[in-house]
């Protein structure tokens, strides 16, 4: 075995399964059952990273999810690379490749460590303070430097090759955490008949029991009890056990988000199988058994590699059979560190000293340490440490009468610290449960829950294994809803004595506070001095102190730092902790890769793509498509050698001179049916509908109650009680929702049915002087001659043998028809019409040509000419309003002050550039005085602008203040490099008499 710090026996690692891995390119050995962190420690490697701000060498601090320092990147190549993984949580596998982060060129020789010597220039609020220096200093000096130097891992350079799954689940009881409390909960709930999901962030279930070598439960050694309990849980069909699954977020109404790591970041030989799965679990009851997290002590230079949490060091010995060092100094304010000292002592680690902050520590643990010959030093602090890439000595100083005495230097390669334990209340707090400060525990514990949740074990403040098991079982029993009926289960526990103690804040060190750095938040490099500076600068609220110093804002969410920061604030302000309160805990509990949230929604599945029935034809024809919402629409159909302008010019010419065919299937369509259908439309649209005869069409305008246009479209009366309503392409769902709203909530008296038919009809527009000649031979059951089928009429007939609603309507200004056929027949009818049009020179055209043609006619597009503040009068649609109607949606608002034409409103006008060849940019502003200094007085803006091949010049539409009164005026359009002179005109540029509508 190559691992020099591996113990010859014990632990849960499998010595029969040696593994090989690399860290920063160097090869190491490990064992199955190791994490990256335990395997590195087995090889004597503590140095694993450089700190965020000062680039200080940092080592492994903990053995769990709270780890602030040991973040690594893992993955065999860029497509499998995941940054910022916590080395204490990733199971080792053979061939694993991990790299350290935030260092250059190497961990040992890092150029960024210059920051450490310049630390006085990076005080709390450093970022905010730089904003007050000249802007140039920030953009040229600080930002690039900070971006290069600060930070965590880098993003992978290749798209993630892994796949991620997602699923929803429901259960009676969700148990979060599979330590003794969680297991007892799951057992109780399962025995009571509940459907249970139990999850745990580790690859092995058991929590603290995995490192428990002394206690006995119900007569069994703790780890044997664990195995028996897991077997018992596994025997229930109604229990789902999820290892390597983090409950990262607690959402309203007992929805909990779980991130299940399915492969442990292994090599993923098969990328088709998912790497991770996002669970959204809705539970009737949630039991949170998340344990407790040990606190570091805040003393000068407490961040050197080799300085660890005491109980974590014990876990490395007991669970992973790893000695974290050869000679240890223990620094504690809690009995649990004595337990760690004894375990390390048994494993052969020399205990150089146990420095206890407490004046006169006593009890079973202290007695046991003394009996083992360990040197206990009460009333002792650490005033500093030595060592660069690894701690080499600690300076122990006695405390007497509140004064710190002369320090003694003690050589060591390991310092273990314990400030006591903080119940893990993150998820409970995320659920908006109220926290309560327990003065005896010196910790926040769960108070009144806000959701159907129960807390158990150490996260509820239980301090012994017996209490942990009992509260766990009780919670599981209650959660299953059989409280009072089930028997109270008693676990017979023989365990180590109760350990007590704890400390919050920064320890005394007797040195000049200005010259020392005692770290509170290792991950964000926040020191005790930073927090005191924030308070000195006037910050009082803990939320402000947090944001100003960034303490607790790193990816570890301050799991090890929040309570010490609070202790420093409390001491400095002389106010008790409950008065100061805590900051808000937010999800995620630990970082979750984005892939979990993206799930299946990537690439082609990112968003639904809507294609019309004619899409395939257009694609085969070489159409260039554009996205219109989720729709793919053919924008133009280039012939070989044509660019868009040439193609559009040709398509426009064909429509104006012969005939064009256009796929209008994306138009929204709603079928309105019922005896009150006409009355319903009367109340909704501005137009008058009662007198519209079956077989006729009308252009409808829809307002909001505030009087502004929200949609428009042609409406056909198919029968007395049946209307075929069209909407804008993007507006159909919104219009239907508005209609349903009024129908269900305001006018339930109306007998009307609404049905979306957008995807049921294919719509083929045939436009141009030859349109009738193309269609007439294909139509059965209707006479489409000018005499019997005038403009704005509709006939039910057959086109190309298919039942159709044939609209005579024009959005081009030419003679036109829109053929509505069932979607399934769309392409066949399209192809028939296209073939029939060949002798007439039919040309397919796209949305770009449609836009040019309608702009030449001054037809508006809702959402382009209008922006939610335009009335019908503003855009020249006042004629559509049914003036005699007593009411319609928006009518009352139109009567309000400021809504009338004379109120200097923006109105639709045409804009012609003085230079006919210059096409304005849409959105450009119009001003009267081009010499005015900015900010200039804007009179309006260009809403549509095109090259018109027919007119051989540019045309534009604009919304301009009192524009109708300014027709003929010259205005100016200031652009980046020049100012363009324009003349305002009527918005109809082509065939203002409308004579071409009849072909």
């Amino acid at each position, binding site marked *: 075995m190559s691992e020099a710090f591996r113990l010859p026996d014990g632990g849960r690692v499998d010595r029969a399964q040696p593994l090989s891995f690399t860290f920063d390119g160097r090869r190491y050995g490990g064992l199955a059952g190791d994490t990256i962190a335990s395997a590195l420690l087995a090889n004597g490697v503590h140095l694993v990273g450089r700190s965020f701000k000062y680039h200080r060498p940092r080592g492994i601090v903990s053995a769990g999810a709270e780890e602030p320092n040991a973040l690594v990147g893992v993955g065999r190549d860029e497509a499998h690379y995941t940054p910022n993984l916590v080395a204490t949580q990733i199971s080792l596998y053979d061939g694993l490749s991990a790299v350290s982060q935030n260092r250059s060129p190497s961990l040992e020789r890092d150029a960024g460590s210059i920051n450490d010597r310049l630390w006085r220039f990076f005080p709390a609020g450093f970022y905010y303070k730089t904003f007050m220096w000249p802007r140039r200093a920030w953009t040229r000096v600080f930002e690039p430097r900070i971006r290069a130097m600060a930070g965590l891992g880098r993003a992978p350079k290749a798209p993630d090759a892994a796949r991620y799954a997602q699923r929803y689940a429901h259960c009676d009881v969700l148990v979060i955490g599979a330590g003794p409390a969680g297991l007892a909960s799951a057992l109780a709930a399962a025995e009571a008949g509940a459907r249970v999901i139990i999850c745990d962030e580790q690859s092995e279930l058991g929590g603290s029991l995995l490192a428990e070598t002394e206690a006995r439960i119900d007569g069994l050694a703790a780890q044997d009890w664990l195995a028996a309990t897991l077997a018992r849980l596994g025997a229930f069909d109604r229990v789902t056990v999820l290892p390597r699954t983090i409950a990262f977020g607690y*959402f*309203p*109404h*007992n*929805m909990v988000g779980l991130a299940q790591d399915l492969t442990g970041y292994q090599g993923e030989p098969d990328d088709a199988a998912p790497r991770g799965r996002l669970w*959204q679990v*809705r539970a009737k009851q949630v039991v949170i058994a998340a344990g407790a997290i040990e606190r570091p002590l805040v003393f000068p230079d407490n961040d050197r590699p080799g300085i660890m949490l005491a109980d974590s060091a014990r876990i490395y010995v007991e669970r992973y059979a790893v000695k974290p060092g050869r000679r240890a100094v223990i620094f504690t304010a809690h009995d649990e560190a004595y337990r760690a000292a004894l375990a390390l002592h048994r494993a052969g680690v020399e205990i150089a000293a146990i420095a206890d902050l407490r004046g006169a520590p006593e009890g079973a643990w202290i007695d046991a340490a003394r009996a083992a010959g360990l040197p206990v030093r009460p009333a002792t602090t650490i005033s500093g440490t030595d060592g660069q890439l690894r701690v080499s000595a600690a300076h122990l100083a006695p405390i007497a009468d509140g004064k710190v005495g002369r320090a003694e230097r003690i050589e060591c390669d390991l310092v273990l610290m314990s400030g006591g334990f903080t119940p893990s209340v993150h998820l409970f707090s995320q659920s*908006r449960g109220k926290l309560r400060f327990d003065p005896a525990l010196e910790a926040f514990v769960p108070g009144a*829950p*806000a*959701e*159907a*949740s129960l807390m158990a074990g150490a996260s509820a403040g239980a301090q012994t294994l017996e209490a942990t098991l009992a509260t766990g079982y009780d919670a599981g029993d209650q959660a299953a809803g059989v409280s009072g009926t089930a028997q109270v289960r008693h676990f017979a526990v023989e365990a180590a004595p109760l350990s007590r103690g704890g400390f919050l804040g920064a320890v005394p060190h007797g040195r000049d506070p200005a010259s020392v750095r005692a770290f509170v938040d290792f991950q964000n490099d926040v020191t005790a001095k930073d927090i005191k500076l924030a308070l000195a600068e006037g910050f009082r609220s803990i939320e402000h102190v947090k944001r100003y110093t960034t303490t607790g804002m790193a990816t570890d969410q301050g799991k090890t730092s929040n309570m010490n920061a609070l202790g420093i604030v409390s001491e400095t302000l002389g106010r008790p902790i409950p008065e100061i309160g805590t900051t808000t805990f937010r999800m995620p509990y630990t970082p979750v890769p984005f892939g979990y949230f993206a799930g299946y929604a990537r690439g082609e599945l990112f968003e639904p793509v809507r294609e019309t029935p004619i899409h395939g034809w257009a694609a085969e024809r070489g159409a260039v498509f554009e996205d219109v919402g989720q729709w793919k629409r053919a924008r133009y159909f280039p012939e070989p050698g044509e660019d868009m302008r040439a193609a559009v010019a040709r398509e426009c010419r064909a429509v104006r001179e012969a005939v064009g065919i256009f796929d209008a299937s994306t138009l929204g369509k709603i079928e309105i049916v019922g005896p009150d259908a006409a009355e319903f439309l009367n109340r909704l649209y501005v137009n008058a509908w009662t007198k519209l005869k079956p077989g006729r069409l009308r252009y409808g305008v829809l307002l909001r*109650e*505030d009087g502004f246009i929200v949609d428009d479209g042609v409406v056909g009366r198919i029968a007395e009680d049946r209307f075929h309503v069209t909407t804008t392409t993007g507006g159909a769902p919104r219009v239907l*929702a508005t209609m*349903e*709203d009024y129908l*269900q*909530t*305001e006018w*339930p008296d109306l007998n009307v049915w609404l049905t979306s038919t957008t995807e049921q009809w294919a719509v083929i527009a045939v436009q141009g002087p030859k349109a009738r000649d193309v269609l007439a031979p294909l139509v059965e059951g209707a006479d489409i001659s000018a005499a019997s089928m005038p403009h704005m009429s509709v006939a039910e007939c057959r086109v190309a043998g298919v039942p159709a609603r044939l609209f005579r309507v024009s959005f081009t200004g030419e003679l036109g028809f829109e053929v509505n056929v069932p979607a399934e027949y769309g392409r066949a009818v399209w192809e028939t019409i296209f073939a029939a049009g060949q002798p007439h020179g039919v040309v397919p055209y796209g949305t770009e040509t449609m836009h040019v043609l309608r702009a030449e006619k001054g037809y508006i597009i809702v959402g382009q000419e209008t922006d939610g503040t335009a009335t019908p009068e503003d855009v020249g649609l006042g004629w559509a309003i049914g003036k005699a109607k*007593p*009411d319609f949606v928006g*009518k*009352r*608002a139109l*009567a*309000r*002050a400021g809504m009338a034409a004379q109120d200097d409103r923006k109105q639709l006008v045409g804009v012609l550039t003085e230079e006919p060849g210059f096409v304005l940019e849409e959105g450009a502003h119009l001003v009267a005085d081009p010499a005015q200094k900015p900010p200039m007085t804007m009179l309006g803006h260009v809403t549509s602008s095109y090259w018109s091949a027919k007119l051989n010049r540019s045309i534009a539409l604009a919304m301009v203040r009192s524009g109708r009164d300014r027709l003929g005026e010259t205005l100016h359009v200031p652009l980046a490099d020049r100012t363009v002179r324009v003349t305002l005109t009527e918005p109809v540029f082509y065939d203002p008499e409308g004579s071409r509508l009849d072909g």
Partner: protein
Amino acid sequence: MLLITCPFCGQRPEIEFAYGGEAHIARAADPRATSDEAWTEYLYVRGNARGLHAERWRHIRGCGRFFNALRDTVTDHFVATYKMGEARPDRTEGKQP
């Protein structure tokens, strides 16, 4: 994600619903007879309650029906859901989980 009880379909996840703003704000039977101030109030002024809030929801990806709900805006707990046209339930406090 909220769990919402549609009066027609039962409990469903929030993703099936669309929020419809404050409830019990009726459109005047004759808007012409309404003052500018009253119409402005109808258009723009809402209660923004802290605590119980009567609001409209639509089960848009379900039965499609509108209904009203009484929700505590502090805790997000629904106290009641009820059909359009029914009076606001006489409740003053949110329910406990």
